[in-house]
């Protein structure tokens, strides 16, 4: 089913649907209210309406495309919008949409606590989670049932566990990267139980030994768009052994608290246990450390730092990440793509040359 079919099916059961802007948000709370989250990453490609021009062309295309899409009625099939406070541009979009009449339905925000894990930040996040839950209770006309929230946490814990398995055991998975990423990104709009079933089916297909052929790579960035990046990598003879895309691997929390006695306390623990991401808690050192851990665990031979143009949170991390990887002797390809356009021939050539170089290094190492 495509997004629109999923939305209609969910609404036909009497439940609400929210369009959610990137990236991080407490999906468990939405699930507990039977709210379907359908993520709005632009959408990619050319703007689907004239209103992209209401925002400067030097602003990230996710934001410009989202405004065009919302203003052109692209989200009219949903009941409300949720804007996580991801960056200055998405925060700006939230107020443009709310204050200048692009959307007449309910608008919700989820504001992150920047900075380190500290008691004050934990108290704020807990209050923010409860505030969102209270707003959604009004929105749905239902009170939040603690047991339903625990169930939602369990479902998303299982989703995280399976996503981690598929990413960590990637070498034993007989899927191409485009197939795997399509599967993982189905979670951006499927009802969690349905997504869980798909992930379980995929995990059941894990081979007992590695099946991936080619050169293993680490990728880091915001979102694998255009998706043809994955085709280009596969065409050049590489496969993604370790993932640090904010839209994919950086959303997989591996350290789940065991106690569910106080579900909001659990959500706070989950929030701070998530992988480092500049859109949440900015800590370049922690992020570079994580990339090194991913390299160690995956055996990736090189790193692709894939940025979306004008993405400020990501761009500030790049010099540090690049330096740390190069100091470790890891070859790095820095690739900037535009959400509105397909991958250029020039970019494909750069990917091919990079993979070719990795192949030569690997061959020398083998000799």
């Amino acid at each position, binding site marked *: 089913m495509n997004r629109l079919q999923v939305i209609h099916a969910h609404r036909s059961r009497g439940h609400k649907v929210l369009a959610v802007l990137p990236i991080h948000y407490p999906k468990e709370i939405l699930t507990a209210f039977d709210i379907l989250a359908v993520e709005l990453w632009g959408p990619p490609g050319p703007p689907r309406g004239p209103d992209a021009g209401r925002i400067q062309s030097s602003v990230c295309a996710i934001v410009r495309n989202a405004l065009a899409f919302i203003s052109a009625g692209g989200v009219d099939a949903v009941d409300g919008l949720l804007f996580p406070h991801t960056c200055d541009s998405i925060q700006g979009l939230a107020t443009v949409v*709310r204050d200048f009449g692009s959307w007449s339905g309910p608008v919700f925000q989820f504001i992150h606590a920047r900075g380190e894990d500290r008691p004050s930040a934990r108290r704020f996040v807990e209050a923010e989670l409860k505030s969102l839950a209270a707003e959604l209770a009004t929105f749905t006309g239902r009170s939040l049932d603690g047991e339903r929230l625990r169930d939602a946490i369990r479902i998303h814990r299982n989703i995280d566990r399976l996503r981690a398995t598929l990413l960590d055991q990637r070498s034993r998975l007989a899927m191409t990267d485009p197939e795997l990423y399509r599967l993982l990104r189905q979670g951006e709009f499927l009802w969690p139980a349905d997504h869980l079933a798909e992930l379980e089916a995929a995990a059941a297909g894990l081979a007992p030994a590695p099946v991936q052929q080619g050169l293993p790579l680490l990728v880091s960035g915001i979102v694998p768009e255009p998706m043809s990046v994955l085709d280009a990598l596969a065409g050049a003879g590489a496969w993604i052994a370790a993932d640090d895309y904010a839209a994919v691997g950086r959303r997989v929390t591996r350290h789940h608290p065991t106690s569910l006695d106080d579900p909001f306390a659990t959500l706070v623990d989950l929030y701070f246990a998530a992988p480092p991401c500049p859109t949440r808690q900015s*800590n*370049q050192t922690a992020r570079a450390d994580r990339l090194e851990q991913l390299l160690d665990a995956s055996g990736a031979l090189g790193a692709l730092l894939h940025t979306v143009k004008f993405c*400020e949170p990501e761009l500030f991390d790049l010099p540090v990440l690049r330096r740390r990887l190069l100091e470790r002797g890891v070859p790095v390809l820095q690739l900037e793509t535009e959400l509105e356009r397909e991958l250029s021939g020039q970019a494909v050539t750069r990917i091919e040359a990079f993979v070719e170089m990795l192949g030569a290094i690997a061959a020398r190492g083998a000799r």
Partner: protein
Amino acid sequence: MISRRLRYELAGRAVGPLLAALRRRRGTSRLAARDDGPFGPPLESTRRLKELMGIYYYQGRFADGAVPVAWVTSGFPVEILRAHGFYCVYPENHAALCAARRLGPQLSEVAEAAGYSRDLCAYARMDIGSVLSGDTPVGRIPKPDLVAACSNICQTVVYWFRAVADHLGVPFVLVDTPFVYGDFQPHGLAFVAEQLEELAQTAARIARRPAREVDIERVVELAWRASQEWGACLEEGRHRPSPWTAFDHFIHMAPIVALRGTQGCLDYYRELHAELSERVRGGIGGVVPERHRLLWDNIAIWYRLRDLSRLFADDGFAFVCATYSSAWAQSWDGFDPAHRVHSTAAMLSGVLLNRDLANRLALMKGLVRDFSVDGVVLHSDRSCKPYSVGQYDLKDALQRELGVRVVVLEADHADSRAYSAEQIETRAHAFMESF
């Protein structure tokens, strides 16, 4: 340590003022001649401004090792640090100074060579370029013991200041101010208030002493009073003709940004206010003749202040107010010394860029009304996303609801490579001709 402290105190109290006095006597601190353009006589206070800022930067050369040093963002609650004896450096103010001296491309290229994208804020690139190269037009910037950011002006400063702290190997502290949609959220204010307490502890640890309550009260009082004086200076722009312009604000706002909480800052704005009042009484305008009155939105284009000022003034257009310069006065509205921590939290959270566009539109409409503005110039600033996103909607709303003429000028506040003089002039002329 003692000799360093002595040198620092001497630099600020004796040598700096002495050098300034010598410059004054030699006439090297002459005011920029404006008699070649359609301007009123230059503000006498500019001389004092140069001395004040000169002494500030001069004393800074001797600060590290003498007193604790912090690099802070313009929206940071610097009063807490000052009460602990910190010397505070403002990288944004320094970057603006570098940009005004046309050093933007040179410093940016250093940062870009180190991997910082040209799509990042030019202030950040210039500051990082200055850190990496050691180049600065002020002689020397003291090395910090603490790098401190407040997210109330943007999230960019969080990434930028953390990168600088990591590079210099010094602690980084953040005061995070949750964005305010509509009304303040109690848990948001509580979070900010808690962080102010945390900041006081960090400051005490680095300064190796807690601040005395009396010192905190004094610094806060000075900052509050200075903000009120700055606000009173801006209010003089309501008069017709306005005794000064927004381009003057951009120059004279340096102390309210960089010296807030000091006696020198308060004294300076009292002096400036007195001069502006005198000009109002004498009917002296910043632009002569003042035919139309404009509002400026967004950060100044530092490297083109004089050109832009002249471009508009030649046709009698005077910028009588600006959202940018107003921000340092409005943020203290509602401050209550009896509830210092809570109202500081509200003050920090309530700054222009930390609130929604409905609030910004209301502010702009108020300025248009109160300052009898005929037209609005929106500087769409490539470097500043939080200030620029939404400007096209603000333009439509101002035109529709107030009937004022509005133009958007695309530029960058510090990187002159993003400035097209011909395009700006063409748009500005077309805008002025529409009156």
